[in-house]
């Protein structure tokens, strides 16, 4: 019997990854959804007995989707697949009715264990005639051989959900250029996984839940860097920067914090009488440390890091980065606005990569 399933994730790369980690011989009919709204539409059409659901998404995120499923009393089994691996995130989704939680990128073994745990599919269950065909999950993700998973992707995303394209255009200012869109999508996804891991470390250390944003990816003029941060030009901030490099993939990780948050942040990391520079370097080593580890894991690299450098303490945001005589024009910029809602703390992580790093990252992700 064919099982209708929905894979809901804003990242194309993540949807493909998820599809690839499904058991080989599971007879499924896959519908892809780019956000919670699309997933709900698909569920209402009966296209998702099982829903693989991401948490951090634009339009309607995973938490809202779970609430909506409950409100509409939709008949589906939800398995959350997320880079947000904070214990609190796990607890929240379970309390909202999700059956289980898989850490991104989903490992095929974990997926099949969970499916068999809940009696959805057991390995060795031969529920289709072409079982035994080893090639039915190819790297391209399309099952040309065997009809065991009919991909309804094109139908649903383009035709059945009328506003899918509109949503896309609003969320992505770069959608004219589809190559770049795919490229940036993959950068966003690996960053997602990385910041999720970093947030989980921070949450463990502080006992506070960290809100995870969708990372903003852009190719920016370096002279505009100060303006990109989500701080106002005159806001007083402090920042620290750490260089990283491996096999030609080179960049800097910046942590920028509003000075008004220092006391709260110091309490949070249990430093009661520390100077602002200490707080800055401590938070930086927690976050950039775990982000670089997680990025390295996904790119199969082990980054060399330089000693952190203080960019400025108590300076206005517009002057933090001295961009007068930079060596380069542009940098791949990934901006992450972390938030700790219970303490009203906001801070920015900027991952800056040299333009030359981009083809090398692409190569590694294509492997």
């Amino acid at each position: 019997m064919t099982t209708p399933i929905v894979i809901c994730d804003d990242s194309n790369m993540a949807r493909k990854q998820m599809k690839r980690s499904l058991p080989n011989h599971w007879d499924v009919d896959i519908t892809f959804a780019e956000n919670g709204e699309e997933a709900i539409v698909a569920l209402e059409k009966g296209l998702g007995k099982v829903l693989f659901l991401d948490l951090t998404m634009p339009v309607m995120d995973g938490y809202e989707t779970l609430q909506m499923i409950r409100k509409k009393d939709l008949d589906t089994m939800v398995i959350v697949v997320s880079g947000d691996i904070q214990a609190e995130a796990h607890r929240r989704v379970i309390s909202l009715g999700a059956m289980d939680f898989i850490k991104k990128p989903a490992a095929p073994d974990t997926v099949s264990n969970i499916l068999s745990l809940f009696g959805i599919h057991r390995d060795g269950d031969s529920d289709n005639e072409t079982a035994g065909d080893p090639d039915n999950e190819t790297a391209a993700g399309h099952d040309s051989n065997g009809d065991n998973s009919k991909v309804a992707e094109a139908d649903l995303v383009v035709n059945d959900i009328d506003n899918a394209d509109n949503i896309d255009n609003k969320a992505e200012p770069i959608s004219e250029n589809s190559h770049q869109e795919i490229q940036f999508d993959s950068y966003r996804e690996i960053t997602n996984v990385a910041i999720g891991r970093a947030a989980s470390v921070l949450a463990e250390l502080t006992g506070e839940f960290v809100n995870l944003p969708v990372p903003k990816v852009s190719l920016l003029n370096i002279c505009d860097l100060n303006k990109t941060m989500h701080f106002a030009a005159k806001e007083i901030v402090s920042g620290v920067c750490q260089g990283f490099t491996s096999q030609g993939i080179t960049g800097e990780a910046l942590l920028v914090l509003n000075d008004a948050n220092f006391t709260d942040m110091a309490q949070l990391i249990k430093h009661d009488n520390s100077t602002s520079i200490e707080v800055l370097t401590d938070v930086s080593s927690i976050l950039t440390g775990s982000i670089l580890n997680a990025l390295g894991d996904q790119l199969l690299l082990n980054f060399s890091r330089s000693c952190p450098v203080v960019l400025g303490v108590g300076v206005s945001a517009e002057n933090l980065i001295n961009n007068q005589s930079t060596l380069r024009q542009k940098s791949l910029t990934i901006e992450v606005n972390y938030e700790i809602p219970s303490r009203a703390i906001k801070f920015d992580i900027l991952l800056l990569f040299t333009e030359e790093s981009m083809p090398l990252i692409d190569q590694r992700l294509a492997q």
Partner: protein
Amino acid sequence: MKLDNLYWIMGILQNMANGLVVVDREYRVHMWNKFMENHSGIALEAITDANLFTAVPNLEEQWFKQKIDSAFLLDSPGYTIWEERPHIFKFETARPITGHIKYMYQNSTLMPLKAVDAEVSHVAILINDVTAIAVNKMGLIKANQKLANRVNQAGSA
């Protein structure tokens, strides 16, 4: 020394923020740590047993060979400082985007290593990133010059 210790000492040498290269008398590479791999883009497997000057073509061969040779000959450590040769290995600085300097300034130490027979068999090359120090010192020199010029002008006026 315990085997355990050896294991983590290797970990330190691999991951420290300094470059470490070991060569023999024929300049064949026997050690090339993570710092060297990551900054040069040349993997350990690719350079092991290869001639250093063939594998890294933009080294200043004659000058650097002399430095290595004298470490073998003298059996005492040799040094190079950024003022004589600023960039031994042409690596980018740790701040390729917010920084204003393209190449990493380097000091190096060349340490003779003895084999069991007490003969110097290898030389270890330790590369230190001194970009920040170099930039500050150059800035200071420039500022002092400016100041001296002003004083001279004021004196002659």
